[in-house]
């Protein structure tokens, strides 16, 4: 021991709590999660929204949701129609239920496409590096630089009318649903690809990867069995927030009339044209809009909580 007693690090150790009883891992995780009542709120709300959209199908039939009754058009919320009726007399409550199913479904499946593409491109780019990386990244950047909404609108126009209505389980869906899912997935992957690439770039320098290579593990195995599982955290977070983004994107373009087409309802296309009736019938846009807001809000809360839980180094709110 030299002449000093325990050299200290940079700042004066104000909070130097030596010898304090250490918290167990369980206590630590619980504390952090408790700090995220918001995340819990988000999860619960999402759950309720799912029940609303999918469980509500047991209360109202789809026929009822599409039942037009022009005599009853534009009625304010009442006991017969708790959310009022729209421009052709359809019950808005029922439509938000069925619309919710589609909106949520689109959100989830679009993210699946986004994940597949983003992870694949990001992984290849990050792992192989060199020219492949340069090329892929240029391409990624290029797509990123075109604002997503414009790409979506153009692609929606491009595919418009090309896919016919689909019949599944006795219900008819507009082909545009498939179109929307695809184009949202196809325009959202760059963001994720970047994240995955960054993870791969940093992880592949690790010793355990060198060891794996030295024992002859194939590249595919290294990517999928070694690196990918270690980079799950940011992928999960990005994926969660991606669902919110997908739902919003669908809402935006449906609102502009280029999204999901009738007969299928979504929260977004229920808002289309509602601004013409802003003075007379606010319930036209209020209910679908609030539902979208609640969904996005809960997903954001949840994503925030996940981010804090999975990455201890991130800055707390």
């Amino acid at each position, binding site marked *: 021991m030299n002449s000093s007693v325990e050299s200290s690090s940079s700042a004066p150790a104000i909070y130097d709590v030596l010898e304090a009883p250490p918290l167990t891992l369980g206590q630590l995780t619980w504390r952090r999660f408790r700090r995220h009542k918001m995340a819990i709120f988000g999860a619960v709300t999402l759950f309720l929204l799912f029940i609303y959209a999918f469980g509500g199908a047991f209360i109202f039939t789809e026929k009822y949701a599409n039942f037009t009754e022009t005599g009853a058009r534009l009625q304010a919320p009442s006991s017969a129609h708790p959310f009022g009726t729209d421009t052709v007399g359809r019950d808005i409550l029922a439509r938000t239920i069925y619309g919710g199913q589609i909106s949520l479904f689109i959100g989830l499946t679009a993210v699946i496409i986004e994940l597949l593409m983003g992870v694949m491109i990001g992984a290849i780019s990050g792992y192989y590096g060199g020219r492949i990386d340069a090329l892929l990244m240029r391409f990624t950047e290029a797509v990123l630089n075109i604002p997503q909404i414009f790409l979506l609108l153009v692609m929606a126009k*491009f595919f418009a009318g090309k896919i016919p209505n689909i019949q599944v389980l006795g219900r008819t869906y507009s082909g545009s649903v498939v179109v929307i899912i695809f184009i949202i997935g196809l325009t959202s992957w760059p963001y994720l690809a970047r994240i995955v690439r960054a993870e791969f770039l940093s992880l592949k320098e690790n010793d355990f990867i060198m060891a794996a290579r030295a024992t002859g593990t194939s590249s595919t195995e290294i990517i999928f069995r070694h690196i990918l599982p270690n980079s799950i955290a940011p992928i999960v977070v990005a994926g969660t927030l991606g669902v919110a983004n997908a739902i919003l994107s669908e809402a935006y373009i449906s609102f502009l009339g280029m999204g999901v087409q009738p007969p299928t309802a979504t929260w977004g296309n229920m808002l289309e044209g509602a*601004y013409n009736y802003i003075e007379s019938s606010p319930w036209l846009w209020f209910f679908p809009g609030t539902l979208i807001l609640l969904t996005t809000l809960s997903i954001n809360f949840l994503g925030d909580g996940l981010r804090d839980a999975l990455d201890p180094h991130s800055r707390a709110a």
Partner: protein
Amino acid sequence: MTRYIIRRILQAIPLLFIISVILFVLMQNMGDPLATMGGRTVTRSSERERLTRQLGLDKPIYMQYLYWLIGNDWDSFDRDGDGIKESAGVRKGILRGDFGTSLVNRGIPVTEVIGDRLPNTLILMLTAELVIIIFSLGIGVYSALRQYSFMDNLITGISFIGYSMPIFFIALVSMYIFSVNFKRWGLPYLPTVGMFDPQVGKTTSEVLRHLILPVFSISFISLAAYSRYIRGTMLEVLNQDYIRTAKSKGIPRRDIIFVHALKNASLPIVTIIGLDLPLLLAGAVVTERIFAWPGMGRLFLDHLTRSDTPVVMGILLLISVAVVVFQILTDITYAWLDPRITYK
């Protein structure tokens, strides 16, 4: 510094090239220009053939791209549709500023069509950007200084909600409250349609009045996000050692906050604001539709639905180039502001 700028610009060129290719490929399949051009008469195949040759659409796709890029006045075409090439093309290509003519507004150059509406969108976006910068700094600093107070918690709550809101919802809600209901309650209400009241004319005050709701709708989301972000960076900065040093020198509190702390805290926001442009543009599209603002967003929608390829392409290109340029500007500004960055 100049070398850094040049390097960034050179890096951007291949990027722009790739973007142009992507856009071109997309546009090739966007509707049927023949139908748009020829109106109702293009059903006979011989007519279609003639038009196809006239518009140069029978050439392979890379040729079409080339023509689009650098024009076709150096090549000869079959003008009268008789199968023999005799006249030179008239297009100069986008690199020379020729974006073609609108298919919907017959014969009017695309640049004119866009140029008509561009300033309006610029007014909207620049105002929004200013509002965002000023208010997010203000609110962020205020929140950081009053951490955990009631106002801070309120602001954080509103920020979270605002950040999750779709633009049209904000637009509709604000419309409903500030226009519809204010009117009902006899309060002075805000206009919701267009850029100015045609009866009053395009005066500055009119435009300003009409700007309020649209700008509010566009900027609300970004405001929510950035004020939280600034709050975070401010708090981080306030905990740094150099703030403690400044305090120990007896520097007045105001200077500590606005000189020592803010200069450090606001640096990252430069980068973030730079990346925000695409979002603002997206917001503009929706907002212009709702508030009937005569800008490029509306133009885009109108001409897209009518398959007016040249105009749509022109707008897309313009926007993409703007995004790239803006990013370069942001990087340069950041490098200029932060003394720690050395550029070789």
